[in-house]
């Protein structure tokens, strides 16, 4: 049964006070501080308030062992070169239009094969998580890549908290649908809302991350605020943004790009230099933010995360299950 806005943790599950206090300090800028700060800036520059949320620093997080050693792509490019068709199909559109999205308050519906269905306040969900910074390479299906210092928590933690039933074989994620806030949804480029999914073992892999920030700050809206998925060994379109619903299911979810152009975008979408897209090679990638004469980078199997994830696909024909 769905109860409107239950607390994410039941009354009987008492969080040790220590943990609770820690989690409260995750977001360093208090609401009052933020409002004071933002109204000043707003007066000065006329910026929309939603763009300012991005400025909130996240201070309480640890560095992750899963980070790669490479230098992150400049913040400017990470936040202005985006594929987020809900705000337009050009790379610059999301940065221009995403201020229309209101990310606070935000609720997430948990449903399907779970012991704890409900509509939860995002804040209640986040209170329980251990945040870490993970520097991951993001490889887009369009043959470019960037390196992003995300902040988030393991998807596996969240899934354990919502108590999957034995029938839960897949995780389905859904993005917000609201053409007023997401003007790109007025055009039928993809079928809205955007849906993505993972197999349960993929979702439980420690690399799968629920991100709420990047570069030490809360996610800018164009990067999928307030909550997005990051699956670093898959093409970027799997890493769904601005999530409002998480559903555990017995059957493979119908994912947006796969539904739209099934012979070009598979459910798995693992980064794989040996399986070309029907219209272009995937063997190399342009490095975003690199100087003009930089040669393209050789794309790595599973985007370089083979050690952690190759076993998930043992015995599978990756040409067929692309």
């Amino acid at each position, binding site marked *: 049964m769905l109860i409107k806005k239950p607390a994410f943790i039941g009354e009987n599950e008492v969080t040790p006070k220590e943990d609770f206090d820690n989690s409260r300090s995750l977001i360093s800028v208090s609401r009052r501080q933020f409002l004071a700060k933002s109204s000043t800036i707003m007066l000065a520059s006329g910026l929309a308030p939603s763009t300012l949320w991005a400025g909130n620093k996240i201070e309480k997080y640890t560095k992750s062992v899963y980070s790669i050693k490479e230098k992150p792509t400049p913040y400017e490019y990470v936040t202005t070169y985006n594929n987020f068709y809900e705000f337009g199909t050009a790379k610059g559109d999301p940065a221009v239009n995403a201020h229309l999205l209101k990310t606070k308050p935000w609720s997430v519906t948990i449903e399907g094969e779970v012991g704890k269905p409900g509509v939860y306040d995002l804040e209640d969900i986040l209170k329980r998580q251990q945040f870490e910074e993970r520097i991951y390479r993001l490889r887009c299906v*369009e043959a470019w890549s960037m390196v992003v210092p995300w902040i988030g928590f393991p998807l596996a933690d969240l899934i354990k908290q919502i108590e999957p039933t034995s029938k839960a074989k897949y995780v389905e994620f859904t993005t917000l649908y609201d053409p007023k806030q997401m003007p790109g949804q007025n055009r039928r480029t993809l079928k809205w809302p955007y849906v993505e999914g993972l197999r349960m073992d993929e979702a439980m892999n420690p690399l799968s991350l629920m991100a709420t920030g990047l570069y030490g700050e809360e996610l800018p809206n164009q990067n999928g605020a307030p909550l997005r998925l990051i699956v670093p060994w898959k093409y970027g379109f799997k890493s769904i943004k601005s999530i409002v619903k998480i559903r555990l299911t017995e059957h493979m979810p119908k994912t947006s790009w796969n539904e739209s152009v099934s012979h070009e975008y598979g459910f798995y979408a693992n980064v794989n230099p040996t399986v070309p897209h029907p219209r*272009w090679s995937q063997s190399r990638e342009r490095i975003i933010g690199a100087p003009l004469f930089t040669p393209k980078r050789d794309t790595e199997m599973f985007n370089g995360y083979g050690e952690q994830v190759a076993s998930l696909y043992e015995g599978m024909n990756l040409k067929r299950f692309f």
Partner: protein
Amino acid sequence: MSKRQLRLLKVIVFVVCLLPFSFIVWDTLNNLLGADPIQTLHFKTGDWTLRFLLLTLSLSPLSRLFNVPLPLRFSRMFGLFTFFYASMHMLVWLVLDQSLSIDNMLEDVPASPYIILGLLAYTLLIPLAATSTAHMMRVMGDSWFTLHKLIYLIAVMGVIHFFWLTKLDYIEPLIYAFVLSVLLAFRWPVIKRIFL
């Protein structure tokens, strides 16, 4: 229009046709190509190739529509600018995208129908550019006109090339396809008789 005036006009048009190129050079030298400079250069040079191609094809309908010969004076110039921007497009691909590596090309070209089509279209442009002089026109006689009919095929290939590389949002290639269809329709005898 006197010979002098025509020459002056040609110089002006020539300089204007070079403006897109100078903006591209300016952006390149000043690091203004954005997050994905190779892609930006691909799109800018590709766009201008198609625009000049359509501009070239619009000259004869314009000339007939207004019953003036002036537009036809610019066929060669616009045709050669089409070739110029197409060559820039090729250079971007060869040098920046492929790093002049044969191995890279052997991997990328077979995987990519739009690249194959683009390469073919560019190859077909070469003989047109090579025979663009008045001298060649005289030497070749009627066969010159037959050869230069290839431009219609090249234009169709260019627009399909754009469609094939596009991901889901087809507005831009559709605009080019629409303009090209109109320009091709003017070549159709029935339409020609009615409108021109």
